[in-house]
């Protein structure tokens, strides 16, 4: 493969991976908030979160492989996973390597989720919030040009989406009541609703 093709492939996989990661985070926070997407049952959102995450992992793999294979820039296989050891833009590539490591950790613990204690899985999964900024800064700093600004716009849009989703998740988390109180609230509200002839509401379990 020619160097130019590799370069384009590397850029494209990186870009699409970032967009998919953004989507993964938005879907993940939707799961967290017990939200739904139009036309999808609630478990559909969970499946979509997982599938989009797997797809973005695949693209990251492609992104790493094309960067390593491309002989124009000096990034070895070790530098792709060992942060800050690359010959080409060590800091920028290092952030990318760090993101790859974190992504691997999140991926492996999620695939083994049923076999791991929740107390291990949950904090590891939360590190995916750190993953996104790492990947984004890596993208902006490692890229040799930003396509005349439209790439920058895309990254900013993704950043806005991620920030909004994270804040929404945080707000829901803070508003969540302890489970036992939730049950009592649901009870009181249902009784009041039925007494007044209103339909009972929906209650969140998280």
């Amino acid at each position, binding site marked *: 493969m020619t160097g130019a093709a590799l370069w384009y492939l590397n850029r494209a996989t990186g870009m699409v991976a970032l967009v998919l990661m953004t989507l993964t985070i938005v879907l993940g926070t939707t799961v967290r908030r*017990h939200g739904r997407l139009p036309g999808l049952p*609630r478990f559909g959102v969970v499946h979509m979160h997982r599938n989009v995450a797997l797809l973005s992992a695949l693209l990251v793999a492609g992104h790493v492989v094309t960067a390593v294979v491309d002989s124009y820039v000096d990034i070895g296989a070790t530098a792709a996973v060992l942060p800050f050891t690359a010959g080409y833009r060590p800091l920028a590539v290092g952030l990318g390597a760090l993101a790859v490591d974190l992504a691997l950790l999140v991926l492996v613990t999620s695939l083994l989720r*049923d*076999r791991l204690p*929740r107390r291990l899985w949950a904090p590891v999964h939360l590190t995916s919030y750190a993953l996104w900024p790492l990947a984004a800064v890596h993208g902006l700093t490692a890229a040799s040009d930003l396509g005349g600004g439209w790439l920058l716009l895309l990254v900013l849009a993704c950043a806005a989406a991620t920030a909004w989703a994270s804040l929404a998740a945080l707000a829901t988390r803070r508003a969540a009541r302890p*489970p*036992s*109180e*939730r*049950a*009592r609230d*649901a*009870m009181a*509200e*249902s*009784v009041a*609703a*039925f*007494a007044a*002839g209103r339909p*009972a509401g*929906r*209650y*969140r*379990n998280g």
Partner: protein
Amino acid sequence: MTAASATVALLSAPGPTLADHLATHGPLPPGDAIAVAEEAGLTGRGGGGFPTAVKLRSVAGGRRAPVVVANGSEGEPASAKDAVLLSRAPHLVLDGIALVAGTLGAASAVLAADAARLPELAPHVAERRDRLPVRLHPVAAGYLAGEESALVAALNGRAPVPTSKFPPVRERGVDGRPTLVINVETLARLALLARGDSSAGDRALLTRRLERAGRLWVDVVDAPLSTPLAEWLPLDADVQAVLIGGYAGTWVPARTAARLSLDHSGLAAAGARLGAGVLAALPADRCGLRETARVVHFLAGESAGQCGPCLNGLPRIAAAMDLLARPAPPPPDLLPAVRRWCGLLPGRGACSHPDGTVRLVAGALGVFGPELDRHRAGTCTARVHRAFLPVPRRPR
């Protein structure tokens, strides 16, 4: 709670001490708990009725030595059998623990019971010379605290609420070890079976609840499963229906109950199971819908509020039952809605709490169908407004 009872088998020792126990039953012979349970076809008495031998085998032979947890929680408000057993024959339960722990090569053994019961149990435990000392654990209050994953969570120092069934506690429970959670009555029955009392597996402790001439009567009996239900409850014109099993159980009209025997297939004929061994005879002067509504309120409030079906389904059903329990026409589409909700819940929670509650409601809507009609017409059977089924009022 009154606890007068027939003195037979399980409760036949004159007192709770080790001396009384040894004088009545003799020492525990060495034996294999799995073989004993298998031969007797023993089933669990914690409510699920699962074959004990299968359960024992599932924790045996693993890589790590298992933990045995004797479940004396008895979260079921209408049941008193485990409390009576622990106060009358604690050494049968402790024998059962020793037997099972020996067979499984257990790493540790726990007896979990209501905190108020522990001071009375401690001297009995201290009196014994078992290979494995038994640790006493106070169970949190509440209907769910006795569910096996909730109990294991509490023993691991976490909140006493049911947890995910993957992995099950039989694979990873207390301290991450394979864990056998087994009801105290099941253990006591193993202790008798190991002594060659082959009938011990074919009996059950029953908590009977009835009213005679306006007076409440509650007791615990050790009943052969081959006997007719009518032998244990007066099923005359003063009784309209029987609640079989407990609050996760089934209502059966008195006339149907009179034809049933207590064994599995006998009760199954009426869609009922012995469950936690509760038999409550609803007096003719009460409203079955109102009694059920009160219990469902309690059950919905006990939900740990973790799973959507429990949180969205049970309060709604409880609130609807309130309306159906009033002698007034309910909203026109309420009854079909409750029936629909009842169909949606089973199997959807992390534990079977919603399933049990729905069973109670669905049964009540069937058995008390004539009462529903009466309410629609603005009248009600109830002549007495005192509650019959117990519902704890717990400061939380």
